[in-house]
């Protein structure tokens, strides 16, 4: 086997200086005409080729039902790369080389005969790919089972060479379906070959949370209930459902964002340091943290989780339709386009510290950040109001990790205003990724694809992590499904429903404005 094990036993390997080598392989993308393939996967693979990070021998196969010659598929993908390549120029010559390794194989994933055909096509490239294969499921979830079953029946789940399968979210629509999906995947592939992708974990700033926490001595001593007052995680989108109304009304923000992305981010913020920076050691700590999140009791849900749905409003002077007015959406849909939730972690480090998470569509701007709010100094020496109160208590120290759009870290603290008197003002000390590193940061899909090809599952979620996060979300889903809400309850272009502010207000907290 060529890969991580070979590197470890190879006396010529130099971990300090050598780039991680990606072994030769075939990549098969199911759902080759889908949005994800066009917008993210093929542009990411092209960019990896641009940076010479693709293996020396590789082929990429796209699959969907439509009959199409290789050249037509290549032309379509070329247009996609030109359109969706992020922060990169398009290089015609490089594309010509890249396209030579790009193929298309038409076939119905429900048809078992298709997999024999696929196996035959892949076998033609064994010399080049050493028999290694990565199967990427970029289809609708209902196709996962027939694809995995078909791969197994055709013997494509076993070598020579390694075999891996990348699964896109949603990993089930509830706990029962998630468990069932895991069982079906594991019937064909071992857990170590299943890569459940959560693109939030591939974001550079989310990875940097681990570096900030565990490579520096100054933060970790403060990273606990003694010093942290609360944590706020915000993932706001200014756009609506963008033509995906029919899909979104079945999913909602809780399933779409919190069950996977934001609970994973929370786990990264709150997990204990792992014994080593190795896939299972890191994932063990994430899983442990997810299992420590307190499961809300039915009577707590109304006060700890707020659903919202946007109504008509305006943004930038333009009228915006409400969710129920979006095409394909039921005019009486009970879908949550916004969620704010309060979670607690029942462990010694975090007991009693609220973790506030909010996400929503049609909020005032697109921003994702994590704010660690520290306890105030016990007494203000400097500023007191005319009633003797401490003015600075309303302006706490904040450590803000900005995930998007401008990646960086800011620390807010109080400073003296220039001039006479001891008037204080909050100031911000900023680290900006752009100014310290200057270079383009890889997209999450570039990072995660290389990891999967190299056999590094650190940033992928594991079965126990998926099930632990469903355990957190399921009671909320069940409660919401059995109640009818007065939707819409927030106007497009605002920061969400009033009840969300009230949820924090009950603990004397305020949502910060990101």
């Amino acid at each position, binding site marked *: 086997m060529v890969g991580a094990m070979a*590197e470890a036993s190879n006396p*010529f*390997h130099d971990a300090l200086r*050598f780039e991680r080598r990606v072994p030769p392989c075939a990549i098969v993308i199911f759902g080759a005409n889908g949005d994800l393939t066009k917008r993210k996967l093929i542009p990411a693979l092209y960019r990896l080729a641009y940076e010479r990070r693709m293996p020396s021998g590789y082929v990429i196969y796209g699959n969907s039902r439509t009959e199409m010659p290789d050249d037509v598929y290549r032309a379509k993908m070329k247009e996609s790369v030109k359109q969706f390549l992020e922060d990169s120029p398009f290089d015609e010559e490089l594309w010509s080389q890249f396209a030579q390794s790009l193929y298309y194989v038409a076939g119905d994933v429900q048809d078992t005969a298709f997999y024999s055909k696929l196996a035959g096509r892949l076998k033609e490239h064994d010399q080049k790919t050493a028999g290694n294969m990565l199967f990427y499921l970029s289809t609708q979830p209902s196709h996962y089972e027939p694809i995995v079953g078909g791969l197994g029946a055709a013997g494509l789940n076993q070598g020579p060479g390694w075999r891996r399968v990348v699964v896109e979210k949603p990993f089930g629509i509830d706990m029962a379906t998630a468990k069932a999906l895991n069982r079906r995947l594991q019937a064909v592939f071992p857990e170590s070959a299943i890569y459940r992708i959560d693109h939030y974990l591939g974001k550079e700033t989310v990875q940097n949370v681990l570096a900030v926490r565990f490579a520096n001595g100054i933060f970790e001593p403060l990273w606990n209930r003694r010093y942290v007052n609360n944590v706020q995680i915000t993932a706001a989108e200014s756009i609506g459902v963008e033509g995906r109304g029919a899909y979104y009304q079945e999913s909602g923000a809780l399933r779409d964002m919190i069950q996977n992305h934001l609970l994973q981010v929370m786990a990264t913020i709150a997990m204990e340091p792992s014994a080593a920076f190795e896939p299972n050691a890191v994932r063990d700590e994430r899983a442990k943290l997810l299992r420590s999140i307190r499961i809300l009791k039915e009577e707590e849900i109304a006060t700890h989780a707020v659903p919202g749905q946007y109504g008509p409003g305006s943004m930038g002077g333009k009228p915006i339709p409400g969710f129920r007015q979006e095409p394909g959406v039921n005019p009486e849909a009970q879908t949550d386009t916004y969620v704010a939730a309060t979670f607690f972690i029942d462990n010694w480090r975090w007991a009693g510290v609220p973790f506030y998470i909010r996400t929503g569509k049609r909020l005032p701007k697109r921003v994702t950040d994590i704010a660690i709010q520290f306890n105030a100094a016990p007494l203000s020496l400097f500023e007191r109001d005319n009633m003797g109160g401490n003015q600075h208590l309303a302006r706490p120290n904040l450590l803000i990790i900005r995930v998007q759009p401008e990646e960086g870290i800011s620390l807010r603290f109080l400073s003296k205003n220039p001039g006479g008197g001891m008037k204080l003002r909050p100031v911000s000390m900023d680290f900006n990724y*752009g100014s310290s*590193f*200057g270079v383009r940061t890889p997209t999450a899909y570039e990072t995660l694809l290389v990891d999967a090809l190299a056999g590094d599952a650190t940033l992928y979620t594991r079965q126990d992590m998926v099930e632990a996060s469903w355990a957190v979300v399921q009671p909320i889903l069940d409660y919401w499904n059995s109640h009818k809400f007065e939707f819409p309850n927030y106007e497009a272009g605002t920061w969400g429903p009033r009840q969300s502010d009230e949820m924090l207000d009950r603990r004397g907290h305020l949502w910060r404005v990101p």
Partner: protein
Amino acid sequence: MSAAVSPEGILKELSQLWVSLGKEDDAGVLRACAMTLIMAADESEDSAIAGEMLAELIHEHPSRAIVLRVRSGEGAALESRVLAQCWMPFGKRQQICCEQVEITSSETSLAEVRRVLMALLAPDLPVLLVCRSLRLFLLEAFRPLIAAAGKVIADSRGAADPVMVLAAIASHRGEGRNVQDLAWTRLTGIRQEIAAHFDRPEEAARLSSVRRVEITHATGPVPAEALYLAAWLRHAAGPQVVPSFAAAEGPPVSQVAFLGDGVEIRIPFAAAIAAPRDCELLHEELGLAAPDSIYDRVLAGALSLA
């Protein structure tokens, strides 16, 4: 260009430079600095070379760059000027700029240069010294500048007596200074190819039969690259492997052959791997903060082979 150089004067000029840059562009500019990067060269070297290298390096290693140009012989006066290197990241609307100070001095003024440099270092950030001149690197008067940097990058390529340069590097490292040789960095691609070859199980199995490695190097004395490679191969493959050298026209190292009972593995190196650009090598070194313990062993091995 000012005749008298004072650190305060240079810092003031830098402040004024940033004010004027900020006014030039509606979007303002992003001032970036992650290290002090001192690039020392002979005055006779084309001044554009250092400028072009820095312009490329700042993309990934934004720095306060100090270009030190040293002329042979005497002369008390230092000269300086300040400028900014800016670039526009693809798809962005704000330029990223780094400041650059150029100081010209004579050999006899190096003590004064050190005083000025100490005041110009960006506070609390790493200091890296790239020494593009072997003459300067071996100069006694240059040692205090080497001692002032957290990492020093020299290049033994083209040395008339590579062993003397390697011995000087070993002496610095023996005194606890992190001095690296770009001749070693130049081998990373070659070493990676060799490692990749032995990733294949069937090739790895043949390694135990290898008794000799033959390194084909550029004509002339055995270059530092070939000595390093021989020492590394021995370090990795075991002391039973005896290195030998053969000369041919081409880059410092163009091929390595593993020979033994029934074994003959020849790995030729493409030009892009055998002769990487200096900027690529500097990029690799500037990105490495951890000590290179393999290099310590290889340096000792190369000196014992010489």
